[in-house]
């Protein structure tokens, strides 16, 4: 089945995929951003879970009840998400800032296919790398927690879902970055916009008077992503399933905006 599916990919789509794959893997920034994300996610997750284990004996009952062994190990996603977003931004913005985009569109005039090819390559690599980082982060965190026997196994209800969701969220950030990079066509501008989406927007929404901070906030990318990873859902927010759809919708909206804009402007 799989073989048939690969052969059935039209030649043009294969061309674009091959080209985008060569571009993606032939620049250092790809490896640097992924490495940065991995180091940030694993090390920050370790520090936080290590601190949990160290302070467990002095924690209040309330704090112990709210303790989330999976969620805490993913604290470093706050930094890793930016690296993945930057990866997506750079996949297209580097072409605009250098002018390479003209060579790209002159050799592949079907621009939507180019964006689709980029989304496929960036998405596939980010999803794979994101999941690898998520599993590494989870196991490192659980290792730190095991000192106080606070760790959970992957088979623990909700644990595997949380780990998979964390990896997926990183891939979503790469797609959001690709979308913003395509629409804004400028590296710094697109990265600022991405920071706005993941940091500024939640801060503003969080400052709204209750219950609007949650009623609106549950639709923000961060809070929705947290619900897909966390073991104890935030009160007032959607459960993991609908939150997952919200996270995916951000990626879909970003790519849709990119595809919409790409044919509407001169290169």
């Amino acid at each position, binding site marked *: 089945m799989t073989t048939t599916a690969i052969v059935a990919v039209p*030649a*043009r789509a*294969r*061309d*674009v995929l*091959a*080209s*985008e794959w*060569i*571009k993606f893997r*032939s*620049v*250092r*920034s790809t490896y640097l951003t992924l490495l940065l994300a991995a180091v940030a996610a694993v090390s920050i997750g370790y520090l936080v879970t290590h601190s949990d284990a160290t302070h467990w004996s002095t924690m209040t009952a309330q704090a112990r009840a709210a303790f989330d062994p999976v969620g805490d190990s993913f604290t470093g996603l706050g930094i890793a998400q930016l690296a993945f977003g930057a990866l997506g931004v750079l996949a297209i913005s*580097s*072409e605009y800032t*250098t*002018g*390479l985009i*003209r*060579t*790209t*569109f*002159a*050799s*592949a*005039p*079907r621009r939507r296919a180019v964006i689709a090819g980029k989304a496929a390559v960036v998405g596939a690599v980010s999803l794979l790398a994101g999941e690898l980082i998520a599993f590494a982060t989870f196991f490192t965190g659980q290792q730190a927690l095991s000192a106080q026997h606070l760790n959970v196994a992957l088979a623990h209800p909700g644990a595997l879902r949380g780990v998979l969701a964390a990896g997926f969220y990183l891939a979503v950030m790469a797609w959001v970055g690709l979308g913003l990079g395509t629409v804004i066509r400028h590296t710094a501008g697109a990265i600022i916009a991405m920071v706005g989406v993941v940091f500024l927007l939640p801060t503003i929404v969080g400052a709204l008077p209750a219950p609007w901070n949650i009623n609106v906030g549950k639709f923000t990318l961060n809070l929705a992503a947290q619900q897909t990873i966390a073991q104890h859902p935030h009160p007032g927010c959607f459960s993991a399933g609908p939150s997952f759809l919200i996270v995916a919708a951000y990626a879909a909206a970003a790519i849709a905006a990119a595809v919409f804009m790409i044919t509407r402007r*001169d*290169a």
Partner: protein
Amino acid sequence: MIEVHELTKRYGGAVAVDGLSFAVRPGRVTGFLGPNGAGKSTTMRVILGLDSPTSGWATVNGQPYQRLSRPLHQAGALLDAGAVHGGRTARDHLRAVAASNGIGARRVTEVLGLVGLDGVAGRRVRGFSLGMKQRLGIAAALLGDPPVLMFDEPVNGLDPEGIHWIRGLLKSLAAEGRTVFVSSHLMSEMALTAEHLIVIGRGQLVADAAIEEFVRQSSRSDVLVRSPAGGALAGLLSQQGGAVTAETDGGLAVTGLDAAVIGDLARAHGITLHELTPRHASLEEAFMELTQDSVDYRADLPADTRKAA
């Protein structure tokens, strides 16, 4: 074959290309000449489907560029040599471009050799000189072995050796029967490489002619004569149908009679000549004359003419 028909491109209120029509034929180097800002690059971008025209159309081999499948086999272009990702190696850059048209690694190696970059194929483009980047851009244009080639200001910033190499390349590509379309703002450069010229100014067609025809049409060629008996000679030449204009330094500029006729006349009437020089306006002068009304940024005008109004 490249065809441009009634092409107009506006950016906001500014008209970059204004009702431009021409055809570029195979088998010769066609120069695309105009002062800076005349619309050359815009026209080339429209031909490649990168910019969409406000009105009119452009085709490559009879088809709009966007409709070509695997277009590198139909047309290759070098627009801006600097338009490469500095972190990529020359080979990776070419492989990415090649792959988008189903062209394999073997052809990449071939074109690297063709432009003389095989020795630095594995080096990052960031460290390349402008000349090396030009060669890389040309290698990319040649990947699909296309019948149509377009180069935007390919000699800009090159050293003499690089310029020499490009001239030879352009001519040999045309000699193979390809359509070769090269833009420049330097008439002297075009004089050395192009057989046919398309001249534009302010986005409009100024001339579309073979180089020789272009010179004949646009240049005033005359004969400069100096003689101690200038007055008598002037009268004689006028009688014989020549038009004589006195130059400020005492010389006579004669049109309508060639140097041999003037010399014979002078001898027959015993008039001494001190100078007898046929003069042809250089191509550069012809170009200046053609485009003087259409240069966008003239040095002798105030920067903001609206102030004067």
